[in-house]
Structure formats: structure tokens, C-alpha cells
């Protein structure tokens, strides 16, 4: 009987990962399943809950394991932000993640579009060459990048932090896959209307692959927001640190003040969590899309 239950619960016509309307659990097995999953979920967010809770506690209270602070305070936040460095690091991360995301979206979609929609000799070679870079781990490139940055004077500059991330082969692949779904007739019609190729790409093809662009944007932004090893290597000036690098050095300095470290961690995590809670649906769809296409 449990077998029949399981199948009924799964609607056949449901689209990928759509939530469906809430239905109460229907038998005892389902209730246990739901409860265990819910408790597991709570366990998953415990570290985040503790991080936020501790960032709102006075230092004398951090040894208390209660999640709700006795006397909540934002003193840690004002202290950390008044220091000024976190403002700086936050701003650096924001600029770098935004600019690399814009650049990646433009170039990856342009290359993906050209490789998908233009017929010319050598395009397969270009595609394979770009894809082959996926096999090269970043760690292998950081030493040459460092040497390059050093000789060109890019150490401790925004450009130095950003340049390796201006395009990604994964994005080219993803966009190429999605441009396959754009009918050639649309492009041909635009050509007859007298649009040039740049206009066709931007105003005809791009709007048709918005979901893919959104998915790629999320991945690239998140990737650059949390990037650690390259910014750590290329910056020595604390004013140019990104949030992860800043937090890493900050944690070392104030090794005893855990409530301050948790505040710093919260500052670097909360923006992405808020964005996730707002755009949950799109982000999960984007992950599925990127995961399955990748």
C-alpha cells in the first residue's frame, strides 16, 4: 500500500521542480518522512542560525548556547562597520563581482551565439579549444597569473583581481546550448529587416535566452563573491581585499572575539542569503539548468 501512496504523491504532469500546492501528509509514513526531513533541514541551517545569533550577542553571552540572545544588540555590527575596513571589503567585492558578471554575460553569450548561429570554417576548433580550458584547474594558472600581474603592475589593483574571471568556458558552453533553442527564422527575419549582426544578437537573440542568462549571472556572481585563492594571492594591500580575504585576515587578528568574527562572517554571507530568499525559485531553476547542461 505504501507503494501506491508514493506514486500518487508524485504528480505526473508536474514541471521540473515546481513546488505544487501544499497538501497535508496523508499517512503515518508520510508524517515521519516529513518530520525527519524538516529536522534535517533545521540541522542544516544551524550553523547559519548560530552565526547570526552570536553576531547579535554581547561578548559575555557567547558561551550561552541559546539561539535567542538574552539582550540582542547590534553593537558588534556598529563596531565592525565603524572600523571601516569591512565597508571597504564589501564595496570591493561588490564592484568586482558585478563587473566580472557583466563581462562574463556579454562575452560568453556573444561567443556562444557566434559558435551556435554562424557557419564558418574553424568554429568547431574554437569551440573545442575554449571547452578544453575547463580541464585546467585554476590552481595551475595562479602562479603564471601572478607572474604576469607582477610584471605588468597589476598586483593590488581591481583589474588584477578581475582579469582571470572576465570570461568562463562553462558559460560559453551553457549559452551555446541555449542559443540552439532560438529558431534561425527569427534571426533571418531580423536580417531582412536590415538589422546588423550585433543588433540581431542583442535585441533578438539575447531576450530569448533570458533564463539562461539569469542562471549564468547567479553562478558567476556567487563564484566571484566567494572567490578566495586568487584575490588572496594578488592582493597584499588590505584596502584592496575582497570580503573573503578580508574576513580571513580579520579572523586571525581577533582570534578571541568570536562575536566579532561571527559578525564579519554574517556581513559576508547575509547579502547572498537575502538574495536567495527573494529569488529562490529562479536560483534553484538556474542551478538545475546549469547543472544539467554542464
Amino acid at each position, binding site marked *: 500500500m505504501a*507503494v501506491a501512496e508514493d506514486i500518487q504523491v508524485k504528480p505526473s504532469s508536474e514541471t521540473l521542480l515546481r513546488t505544487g500546492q501544499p497538501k497535508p501528509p496523508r499517512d503515518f509514513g508520510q508524517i515521519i518522512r516529513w518530520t525527519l526531513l524538516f529536522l534535517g533541514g533545521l540541522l542544516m541551517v544551524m550553523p547559519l542560525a548560530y552565526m547570526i545569533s552570536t553576531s547579535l550577542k554581547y561578548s559575555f553571552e557567547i558561551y550561552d548556547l541559546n539561539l535567542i540572545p538574552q539582550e540582542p544588540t547590534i553593537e558588534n555590527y556598529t563596531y565592525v562597520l565603524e572600523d571601516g575596513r569591512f565597508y571597504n571589503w564589501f564595496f570591493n567585492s561588490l564592484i568586482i563581482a558585478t563587473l566580472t558578471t557583466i563581462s562574463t554575460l556579454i562575452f560568453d553569450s556573444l561567443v556562444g551565439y557566434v559558435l551556435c548561429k554562424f557557419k564558418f570554417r574553424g*568554429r568547431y576548433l574554437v569551440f573545442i579549444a575554449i571547452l578544453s580550458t575547463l580541464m585546467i584547474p585554476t590552481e595551475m594558472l595562479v*602562479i*603564471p597569473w601572478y*607572474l604576469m600581474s607582477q610584471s605588468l603592475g597589476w598586483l593590488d589593483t581591481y583589474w588584477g583581481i578581475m582579469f582571470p574571471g572576465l570570461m568562463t568556458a562553462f558559460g560559453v558552453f551553457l549559452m551555446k546550448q541555449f542559443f540552439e533553442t532560438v529558431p534561425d527564422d527569427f534571426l533571418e527575419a531580423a536580417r531582412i529587416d536590415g538589422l546588423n549582426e550585433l543588433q540581431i544578437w542583442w535585441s533578438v537573440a539575447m531576450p530569448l535566452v533570458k533564463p539562461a542568462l539569469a542562471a549564468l549571472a547567479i553562478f558567476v556572481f556567487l563564484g566571484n563573491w566567494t572567490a578566495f585563492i586568487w584575490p588572496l594571492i594578488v592582493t597584499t594591500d588590505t584596502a584592496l581585499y575582497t570580503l573573503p580575504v578580508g574576513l580571513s585576515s580579520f579572523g586571525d587578528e581577533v582570534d578571541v572575539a568570536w562575536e566579532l568574527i561571527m559578525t564579519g*562572517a554574517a556581513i559576508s554571507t547575509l547579502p547572498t542569503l537575502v538574495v536567495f530568499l527573494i529569488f529562490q525559485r529562479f536560483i534553484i531553476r538556474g542551478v538545475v539548468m546549469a547543472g544539467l547542461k554542464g
Partner: protein
Amino acid sequence: MADLSRSDDTPPERGWFSARWHRLSIRQKQVVWAWAFLAIPIVFYVVVRFYPTANAFVLSFQEWNLLGARTWVGFENYIDLWNDPVFWTVFANTFEYLIIGTPISLVISFIIAYHLDKVRFMHGTIRALYFLPFMTSAVAMAWVWRWFYQPVPIGVFNNMLAQIGIPQIAFLQSTAIALPAVLAPAVWAGLGFQIIIFMAGLRAIPPTYYEAARVDGVSNWTMLWEITLPLLKPTIVFLVVFSSIGFLRIFDHVFNMTTNNPGGPLNSTKPLVLMIYETAFGGRSQMGAAAAQTVVLFVILLIVSLVQLRILRDR
């Protein structure tokens, strides 16, 4: 075709470029557009991907500390690495991360995805709870977990243990426990992604298969082994390769959980990427030796993914 494109005769006042452009056929114009669009990306991939790759290989056969001259040393960097006992500890650690991390994270995420797929009530909320850690930065979370692992009275875990009367565990100081303790947050952070991908894979299995099996009176367990898992193979292959590469490249968590003694205690948590970082940027600037280590990492990643693809595809 040729006549058509030439019918538009170029007046003499037009520039040379414009004149040439108007003489091209539509097909030829497209080729010009294509290469114009590709120009910047091609320069980027050559300068920022291909040249550095070649450079890493070349550098691995040289000795250089950034200040003096580069000298060719042949295979000496590789031989030194082979004879370095620390390298073998690091090598073992790197595989330990892979061998513990990948199966554990895949089994847990599959179990959760399998059951979550069948739950409708508050489905979105529960899914969000599991997915949230994936949105965090490894550095921030490394610090949170590091705090959890502190001794009494600071650390959460040891406080909990103390309350039920279990002696303290020196999570990050013990050579036996430190590696799993560092690995745990990495597994935790990646679960959400794997669950989502597994659920997408589960949704892609046509329900008619299950309906047919149910008519035949097949048990739940048999359906899992005979229908679900075989049909999930592409998803499993993707996740195994993807997460193995992740665990082989572990760095952020280890570096930040042990900053006072990176990779410690006694190198018991040091992965290959941390060794590369220290060799190149840890003060002595042994660029050639570090480059050789990156080549080793590259080869390991390549072999592990090829072997996994081979094994999983054949089955």
C-alpha cells in the same frame, strides 16, 4: 549571388574599407562578423588560459625564486617532490578528502532528495533549508565551524558533549580527527547543490515506469534499485565527477580553519592546493617547485575524472 552583391556599385567617395565591405557576399560578411565578435575572447583565452598553462609546464622544469634568474633543472622539481615525505602525506590527505567526502556527500544528498521528492507539504521551505548553506562563502563558514570546534567554554560541540558528560574532543588539534573535522563543513556546504541536481534527475524519470512496476507488484526497494538508480546514471556520473574534483581541490576550508598553523596539526589536514600555495607564496617563492606541484594536481584531476567517467559509463 555574386551579381547580387556587386549590384550595389561603390561610389568613389566611399572609403577603401567600406568599398571592400559592400563587395562581400552575405556569407562572407557573416564570416567577418563572426571573427570580429570572437576577436576579444580569442585574445583572452590565449593570454589568460593557454599561455599560462604552457607557462606552468615550462616553469615546472625550472628553478626560480622570483629574484634571481630562471635556471633549467630538468625533472629535478618532480624528483624532489617524489622524495619529499611531506608531499606523500599531502597526497594521502588529498585522496582522503576525496574518498571520504564524495561517497558520504552523495549518499546523504541522494537519501534526502529521494524522500524530499515525495513530500509535498512545505516542500519549498524544506528545500530552501537544505539549499541555503550552498549560498554561503567557504571562508565565512570555515570560521563558523572553527568556532563550533573550540574547546569548552567557547565551542558549541564541546559544550554539548560536556552537557551529556562526554569528555572534550580536540577537533582541530588531533591528527586523527582534524581532517574529517575540516571536511565536514565542505560536505555540508555542497549538499544543497547535489540535492537539487538529484531531485531534477528524479523528476525526469517518467512516472509510467513506476506505474507499470506497481501493477506488477514490485516492492519499493526493488523499484529504487531497478528503476530509479539505473535511470539516474547520467546525474550520478555528473555529480561524482563534479564533487570529486571539488574535494581534490579543497583549499578555502582548510586554510581558514587552521590559519594559525595552515594544514596542521603536523600536516594532517594539508591538501595539495595548500601545499602549492605555501610553496609559491609562503615566503620562499619556490615558483618552479610549486609549478611542478600544480602539474601533479592537473594530472591527478585528469586521471580521476577519466577513470570515473569510464567506470560509471560502462556500468
